[in-house]
């Protein structure tokens, strides 16, 4: 069964995934270590993808694909006909820069989908990325979160502009659906409802 939750207008439901996710081949570069521990987070703006990985990335010849940002940028001319056909989306990791995307693709709305990969639940950069894509860059199409996506992030993801959530494979998307409505009257303005509570209600005295 599908683990993809998607908004269609006001209501969210579980739908079939139309998009194939294209991954980079595993890197030959050793994991960075610090004090004997593998570093858990990549730093923002850090270049973590090699030219070989980009070149060796296998993009399926047909169908709708979501390609990694680095592949999208480097192999753009190869992808152009499919971009024009609306068959290409982009995914970025939380440490990658939106500037790298907009430098290549000025009209983001030519992309039917942008996805953000969150490696670990605790990585809240995804919320700022979603907010910027919606409010600063005017992206209007599907914005998907995938990776370590669990039900307790959904309310925040929704408020940060995400309208599609690929729940981690070992979890139940049906149960996760309920968490989109954990709170009915949030205080502050955000992407889904820009007006803070003091603009929406007359709170009397």
């Amino acid at each position: 069964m599908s683990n993809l939750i998607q908004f269609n207008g006001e209501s969210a439901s579980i739908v079939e995934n139309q998009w194939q996710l294209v991954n980079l081949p595993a890197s030959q570069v050793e994991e960075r270590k610090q004090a004997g521990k593998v570093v858990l987070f990549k730093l923002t703006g850090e270049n973590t993808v090699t030219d070989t990985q980009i070149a060796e990335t296998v993009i399926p010849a047909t169908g709708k694909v979501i390609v990694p940002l680095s592949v999208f940028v480097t192999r753009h001319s190869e992808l152009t006909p499919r971009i024009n056909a609306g068959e290409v989306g982009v995914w970025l990791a939380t440490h990658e820069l939106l500037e790298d995307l907009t430098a290549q693709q000025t009209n983001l709305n030519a992309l039917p989908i942008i996805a953000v990969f969150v490696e670990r639940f605790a990585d809240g950069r995804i919320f700022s990325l979603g907010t910027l894509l919606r409010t600063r860059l005017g992206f209007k199409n599907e914005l998907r979160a995938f990776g370590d996506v669990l039900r307790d992030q959904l309310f925040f993801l929704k408020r940060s502009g995400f309208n599609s959530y690929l729940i981690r494979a070992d979890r139940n998307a049906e149960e996760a659906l309920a968490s989109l409505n954990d709170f009915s009257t949030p205080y502050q303005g955000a992407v889904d409802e820009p007006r803070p509570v003091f603009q929406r209600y007359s709170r009397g005295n």
Partner: protein
Amino acid sequence: MYQYDEIDQKLIDERVTQYRDQTRRYLAGELSEDEFRPLRLQNGLYIQRQAPMLRIAIPYGMLSSRQLHKLGDIASKYDKDYGHFSTRQNLQLNWPKLEDVPEILAELATVEMHAIQTSGNCIRNITTDQFAGVAPDEIVDPRVMAEIMRQWSTFHPEFALLPRKFKIAVSGTKDDRAVVQMHDIGMEFYKDSSNKVAIKVWVGGGLGRTPILGTVIREHLEWQHALTYCEAIIRVYNLHGRRDNAYKARIKILVKALGIEEFKRQVEAEWAHLKDAPNTIPESELERVSKHFAAMPYETLPAHDAGFDAAIASNPAFAAWVKRCVHAHKQTGYRAVTLSLKTHGIAPGDATSTQMHTVADLAEAYSFGELRVSHEQNLILADVKLSDLLAVWEKARANGLASPNIGLLTDIICCPGGDFCSLANAKSIPIAQAIQMQFDNLDYLHDIGELELNISGCMNACGHHHIGHIGILGVDKDGSEWYQVTIGGKQGNDASIGSVIGPSFSAHEMPSVVQKLIEVYIKERTPEERFIDTVRRIGIAPFKAHVYAEKNAAKAEVVA
């Protein structure tokens, strides 16, 4: 103080439901230990040495009698009949059961309280001056903006999972009592040249492993923009703060790495987009919240009270208490009172259920049913009539709440330390108790005068040891507990970070180390000088020489 409307109430009720389900899923094995951790932390629940610790939010330190009665009841029902008031104006329970926490939250919600964002990597409880609204030197009551910011920061979706915890303090007085310079963001409200409320904004202060005072990022910000400007700062931090190393993840490290000029440039560039966005605070919202903090219905009273004057003249114990624990008030005939939670030999900041009920009753009878928690871990009755002080003192004294030691050496600021906290390297409470017993002579204590002594059981610095006139830090050396001593730290406008005097000491040496520091001060001081002034004038060398004299002599003997 602020009263919830149905919107506020619904939010915390929904939180109880959400957390109840999260706990259920954890106990049912549907959430792993690692997955539950950020969820319980966002709700103030730590897993400690002995039991979980639950930190209950006391927004900017304000409590009603009804709330404190409830806290007393909760401490009896779910804990061992006491609670610990923390340096961030919150209340910590040391012995609740994990499975009881949803029930505790449900009880708290009935008195407009919660534990939201009292820990975890998010915006924490916003702190301020315990004398807000009553201090004679106050320019702007900071509680209004603190409440507006509390609402804004509660479940802020973009800042739900920051690189590290994020602490904001606000102040509205010339003499800072909220330590705004040691917070991730510090805000000082003032009136600008056109008599409008403006904000001076500091960023990147903090204690912990890398103690550093904040830097001014903006001298003048119109109050309407408080939220959007914070959003700009925190967005830059959320995107660029380090997440690979918890010790380098606070905003202070990012500000240092970029330099304040570059950090400010990025913040201002971000703010250019956010300025005047819907989160800009309208006049109407400021007015609405301000009404909750309107002046109390004070009586018109004379500046003097004959009964009070007579009691001072005839009762030296009462006079000593008034000198230390009673503070000036902007309203003629009223005073603010500090009820000391620093009785010698009791863990600093601890209050029993009975004491909580007593203080709640005192607040009800003498201070309009409200009270405050200070970051020095005492309780404050903010609005007591001069003529009621004697009655307040008698009841407080009978309940161990009237130690006349506020601002003195034994008014020790202290974290729970190794007795409770799993982060601690060393115990802190027994050190505080030993020092209090060493200086148990009141006349001597008063002669030493104003002195702030802070103890932290580890680098995380919950006891704010860096800004203590004397700071004590628990360190671990080869598995045993040692204590490093700093002097010359200070809170306030001229805040400073203390200097380490030398190699660390064992626990049993600590009372005599403090004793020796005091001896140097008594010998060197001018009549007007406080301990901190003497340290600043003569430097740490004479203190160091005296404290280590015996050790050095012993060493010399061995060498000879």
